[in-house]
């Protein structure tokens, strides 16, 4: 198992709220291999960010905590570490970048300061060296005239530039693992393309593993080696990018892919829709969390919660339909939908 740099096992996280303690994620398991990119996809509020925060133990600062489960990193359980020990891992071994690059940078320090800070902290560099390295990092992420930029403040830069700075900051200490929480959502598509390109290039150059969180299936398709699909706090399906796109097995994944209007083929027709909305974490349904919206739900779905299990090599699904009546269901689905990569229009 040492192939996997990061292994999240049955991670359950909770938040303190007005209505008591609520579970934000429930028994989430994800593994990230060395040099691999794993994408975590799902709708808003499904628990993607919480999972990433839990890995970094940043959730402890956000009014939540890890209730059970492990986060194995190089054989150490991060979930059991105390916060002081985490300081040496955060930013050093595992780095993280967030959605909104503008607000992720402290407005009152120069970008150079902010990049050098990690270096001074984790690598005991002198201030001078750290600044030199900071310039180097800025160059690495493709910022022109880094010597000038290093002395500028975040507000003097554009969004794309800021995101590069954030990436430079994250990568400054050569982390083995990068967690990127929707790194490009706030950016324009052309800039997003630049950043995704950059991430891919850096990953190759530095040999990092990436846990990429996104809700854009396109980004996932482009970046991921493996994809984990989250729904209402649980992983409903996990597998290699090909399997997920070619042969999705969970009705949610299938629906998700089908409801995206495509770039090719027919247009203007009625789109496939998943009925209803994602439930709030305080009002989860019994049994399978997806069953109220699932067109194929059977009795069992209403009563028992399915767990994630491998159905094909490289693909795990949490769905009763894939267990007992798997063949029937799958054949059925295949017949009327997503042959291959096309999220074609589905007329139901």
């Amino acid at each position, binding site marked *: 198992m040492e192939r996997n740099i990061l292994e999240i096992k049955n991670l359950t996280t909770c938040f303190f709220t007005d209505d008591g303690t609520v579970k934000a994620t429930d028994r989430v398991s994800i593994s990230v291999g060395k040099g691999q990119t794993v994408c975590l996809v799902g709708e808003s509020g499904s628990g993607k960010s919480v999972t990433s925060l839990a890995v970094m133990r940043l959730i402890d600062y956000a009014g939540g905590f890890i209730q059970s489960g492990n986060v194995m990193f190089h054989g150490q359980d991060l979930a059991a570490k105390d916060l002081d020990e985490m300081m040496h891992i955060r930013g050093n071994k595992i780095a993280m970048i967030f959605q909104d690059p503008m607000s992720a940078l402290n407005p009152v320090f120069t970008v150079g300061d902010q990049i050098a800070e990690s270096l001074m902290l984790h690598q005991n560099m002198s201030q001078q060296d750290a600044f030199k390295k900071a310039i180097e990092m800025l160059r690495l992420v493709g910022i022109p005239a880094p010597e000038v930029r290093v002395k500028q403040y975040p507000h003097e830069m554009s969004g794309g530039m800021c995101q590069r700075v954030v990436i430079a900051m994250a990568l400054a200490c050569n982390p083995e693992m990068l967690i990127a929480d929707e790194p490009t959502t706030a950016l324009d598509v052309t800039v997003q*393309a*630049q950043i995704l390109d950059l991430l891919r290039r850096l990953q190759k150059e530095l040999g990092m593993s990436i846990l990429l969180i996104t809700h854009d299936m396109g980004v*996932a398709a482009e970046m991921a080696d493996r994809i984990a699909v989250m729904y209402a706090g649980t992983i409903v399906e996990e597998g290699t990018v090909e399997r997920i796109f070619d042969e999705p097995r969970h009705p949610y994944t299938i629906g998700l892919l089908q409801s995206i209007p495509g770039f090719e083929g027919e*247009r203007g027709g009625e789109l496939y*829709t998943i009925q209803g*909305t994602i439930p709030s974490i305080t009002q989860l349904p019994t049994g399978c969390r997806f069953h109220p919206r699932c067109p194929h739900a059977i009795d069992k779905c209403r009563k028992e919660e399915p767990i994630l299990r491998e159905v094909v090599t490289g693909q795990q699904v949490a769905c009763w339909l894939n267990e007992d009546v798997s063949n029937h269901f799958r054949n059925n689905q295949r017949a009327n939908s997503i042959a291959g990569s096309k*999220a074609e229009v589905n007329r139901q």
Partner: protein
Amino acid sequence: MNREYLIEANHIKKYFPIKAGLLSRVIGHVKAVDDVSFGIRPGETFGLVGESGCGKSTLGRVVLNLQRATSGEVLFDGTNIHQVNRQENLKLRRDMQIIFQDPFGSLNPRFLVSDIIGEPLRVHLRASAKEIDERVVELMSLVGLDPSRRNRYPHEFSGGQRQRIGIARSIALSPRFIVADEAVSALDVSVQSQVLNLMMKLQKEMGLTYLFIAHGLNVVRHISDRVGVMYLGKMVEIARTDDLFAQPLHPYTAALLSAIPKPTPHRRQERIVLQGDVPSPANPPSGCRFHPRCPMAQERCSKEIPELIEVGQDRQVACHFPLA
């Protein structure tokens, strides 16, 4: 005057003054929309795409007379909407509506849903409370909301439902033309498809005309009949949807199309990665505004502003060296 269009924008300019100095002197302008012309035919959906800040929303507002154009005219059914008096303007409001991007910001959190949907009726029809209520129930059913929940506040609804409330409000007066400003951009894909379906359904039933502003190209492709591409306040290309996606003529359109990651893991295609960021509309580059980022820019591009010219059936492009 071309009466084939329900709405026609001619040489619209919208400049926002940049003030500075001790006396707030105007030291320049943000050229949010700079000489844009296009028309929308009745019953058609006109998609408008472009990167953030290129002036899509501003154009939408100007078209609705929510903001006055710096120059140029907007004709709605032949009348110049910028030259109407108050009375006529109020009447225009019944014919032209808007749906907003933000399903949270566009609904007043202190209003009941029935008040939100009923407000246009209250303002325009002077109907009794009961009549308004009946109409609200009707509208809610039409957009697929449970009318029994009309006495609730917006925060009790999910994003998709809130967007439906916004739609119900905008169709309350049976308008002919609706600007949908990023109406689905903030929604999750599974919900987005619901709303798109609804909009298409309403269009069919009510014969609506849409100006559909979005940056999700796949969505635009799905719903639009024709698409306009904007870059830095300029319209760079207008074409029928199929033509545009099959064969973009402007290098920017091409780059935009290729920059969008597609949910097709097998074809990680070679993409045109543009260099640099979108320049500020306050001081746009000379000549063709796209030239500093254009992979095929030439000398002429930096000097001469390309006009939007007809290059084929229903197809216009503003480029000195169009592709293909």
